[in-house]
């Protein structure tokens, strides 16, 4: 990092000692996982820069926004309609929670046996190590899973939390419920920021965020090519950065990257040999700096061509209809777009399994790796449905359950390699 950001971190109330540890860990992990890759697109430079400034430049931007009276709103889930935050003049940041830090503090108020993502966000907050979290004026929670839902009750003791009730099904009455939740969120944001959400401001926000989603979809589309023009790890990084970077700048930079990838594709250039195994990763979100499984996969000779994850397709595959002619219609369009997300929190969630079959075909994938965080009941149980449907379609599947620790890396690598051997034999 170029500048001295310590005064800023100090003013944010960060625990500088723990923060130093975190900040040391990220470049190390990043170097090992990212910088060793061959044939990286030149335009990855921007994203590498973002990581190198992960607690610097962007935080400074958030502080500047705040000093102009702007609000920063944190979210842990892709169900939180960021367009509305934006339309109210706020900045929405995805709080990643991908590292095991502050576990001891978190376990003072949370059980041990709970999803690492949940433990991580509590640890970040209680340990004051995340400048994004410390920049937030409020957090928007949702009722997607048991652990999070209940943990927000406790988090509320440390930062104001606004809860959105995400329904568990997608019937007409559930849509009605969700629409009213989205409408309430508009009101909440207006009150919180002191700014009106108008037709124009919301339209602008919808178009901007759609732009971000569309460029991500374009990137995804390019990965259908053989050989894949970009690694799965790089793609995941971009998808992770999408959650907190400045929207316009992100869209611009990702567009440049896609232009480069297009050229590469035309020249027949890829990150791996054309014969490399093509893998789709599906399951629970992978937040910065949780690159463990993708790194194992790609350092075993395969290339990840798609992420059916929250940090992946689920985040950008649908856009918001831009034809609403009044605020009411815009809000309905937003509600619709968000309820179309095929998360395992819904019952049933057949659309997800159907989609996996479709993705395998479109991306010409050799196999799917279902990766779930430990204790995530929705995804762990749904893996059984995934297995059933993929079997029916003869699509090979490997199921992994893991957490943020590195202890199981060796064992995971063995399992992944065995899976790849099987796939290679099948392909030959």
């Amino acid at each position: 990092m170029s500048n001295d950001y310590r005064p800023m971190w100090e003013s944010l109330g960060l625990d500088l000692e723990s923060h130093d540890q975190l900040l040391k860990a990220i470049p190390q992990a990043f170097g090992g996982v990212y910088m060793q890759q061959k044939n990286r697109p030149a335009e990855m430079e921007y994203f590498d820069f973002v990581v190198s400034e992960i607690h610097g430049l962007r935080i400074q931007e958030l502080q500047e926004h705040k000093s102009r009276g702007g609000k920063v709103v944190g979210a842990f889930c892709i169900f939180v309609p960021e367009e509305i935050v934006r339309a109210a003049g706020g900045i929405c940041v995805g709080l990643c929670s991908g590292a095991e830090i502050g576990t001891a503090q978190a376990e003072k108020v949370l059980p041990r046996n709970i999803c690492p993502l949940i433990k991580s966000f509590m640890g970040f907050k209680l340990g004051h190590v995340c400048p994004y979290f410390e920049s937030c004026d409020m957090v928007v929670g949702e009722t997607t899973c048991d652990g999070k839902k209940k943990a927000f009750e406790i988090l509320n003791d440390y930062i104001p939390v606004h809860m959105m009730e995400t329904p568990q099904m997608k019937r007409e009455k559930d849509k009605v419920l969700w629409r009213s939740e989205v409408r309430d969120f508009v009101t909440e944001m207006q009150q919180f920021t002191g700014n009106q959400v108008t037709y124009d401001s919301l339209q602008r926000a919808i178009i901007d965020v759609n732009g971000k989603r569309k460029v991500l979809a374009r990137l995804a589309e390019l990965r259908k090519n053989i050989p894949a023009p970009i690694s799965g790890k790089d793609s995941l990084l971009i998808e992770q950065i999408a959650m907190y970077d400045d929207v316009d700048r992100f869209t611009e930079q990702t567009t440049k990257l896609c232009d480069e990838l297009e050229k590469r594709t035309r020249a027949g250039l890829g990150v791996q040999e054309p014969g490399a195994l093509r893998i789709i990763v599906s399951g629970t979100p992978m937040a910065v700096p949780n690159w463990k499984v993708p790194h194992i996969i790609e350092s075993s000779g395969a290339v990840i061509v798609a992420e059916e994850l929250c940090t992946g397709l689920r985040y950008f595959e649908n856009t918001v209809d831009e034809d609403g002619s009044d605020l009411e219609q815009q809000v309905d369009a937003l509600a619709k777009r968000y309820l179309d997300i095929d998360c395992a929190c819904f019952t049933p969630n057949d659309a997800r399994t159907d989609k996996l079959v479709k993705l395998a075909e479109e991306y010409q994938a050799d196999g799917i790796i279902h990766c779930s965080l430990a204790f995530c009941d929705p995804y762990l149980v749904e893996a059984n449905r995934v297995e059933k449907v993929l079997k029916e379609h003869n699509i090979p599947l490997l199921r992994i359950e893991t957490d943020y620790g590195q202890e199981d890396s060796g064992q995971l690598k063995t399992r992944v390699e065995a899976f790849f051997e099987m796939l290679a034999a099948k392909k030959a």
Partner: protein
Amino acid sequence: MRPSMMNIFENLRDQNILDLEHAKRDNKKVVGMYCAYSPQELVLAAGAIPVSLCGTSNKPVAAAEKVLPRNLCPLIKSSFGFAITDTCPYFRFSDFLVADTTCDGKKKMFEILGSMKPLHVLQLPQGTDRPGALGWWLEEIRILKDKLEENLEATIDEDSLRAAIKLANKERQVLRRLHEMNRLDPAPLSGVDLLTATWLRSFSVDKAEGIELVEQLIEEIQEIADKGLSPFRAGTPRILLTGCPVGSGSEKVLKLLEECGGSVVCLENCSGIKTQVYLIDEDESRDPLEAIAERYLQIPCSCMSPNPGRLELIAKLIDEYRVDGVVDLTWQACHTYNVEAELVRQLVKDKCGLPYLQLETDYSTSDVEQLKTRLAAFIEMMDRS
């Protein structure tokens, strides 16, 4: 001094299955339910028999683990295991299943179970504090009514609903009275017996008969109490057990608590007081479905967020039952109860100033020795004699 009536309750297990077999032969329909939020009144009003399919045995867990993740609540694995191994007569007898989205594990498990028998899932609101929650839940109840009518080929009319409400209320009241006998000090009934009586009665084919039995038991307990007798010596620490559901077969912790010298005077869980204290409004001018919806939404389960009702109830029970300590039982990987334990701890320790112990365990016996040590130490701390 143990009430002799308890023998009758213990024999109910076999009796209930026989009765059910007869009822099935007479073409009665049986509806299996998995959660305290499933309104049994609708089933009763349809002329069918509601039974609880909540798994309380460790036996079928291994079979379930072949399909479900290991890191899942034992109650879910047990319920699922019973179904796939076909070892639960109640499941076999069931013509129709009613399930709830109580927790992630159950919700997703039902997707797999649904291929075995006709099943309807009720969607619970996630919190009760939102203005729309009750109306939304009422719609769920109406949908359930239609489903039951369709699947059981029955009609559920207002009169039968009102009769069912009265009957179920009566049952709640008598169970509550039974429970409240243990406000006496020392308690005239052990926690284990309290659970046995409550649990086995819940499978009776004829509710009126079950109510009658509980009434007789209360009478006998009163006699025992009048003589100043009790299974416990004066000064035995009085414990409130809260947390995840406990039933006959999964009473490990309850049993250990009493073996280690405690007296479990109150069960604040689904098989205990939590489902007995709230009655359905019998006001004839009201829509009975609305009254039902309202009552069920009052159940203070940790699946609701927020769930202040549970804390209020526990605080009240601590007073009423003159409790010396609270044990909060969490089934392994039950996230809602596990997280909510922090709030219960704050209430019991910080506000009420009482000893509090949270335990996370499963249905197996592998940790019994370890539990014993912890429970014994906990009880010793409170000994009043």
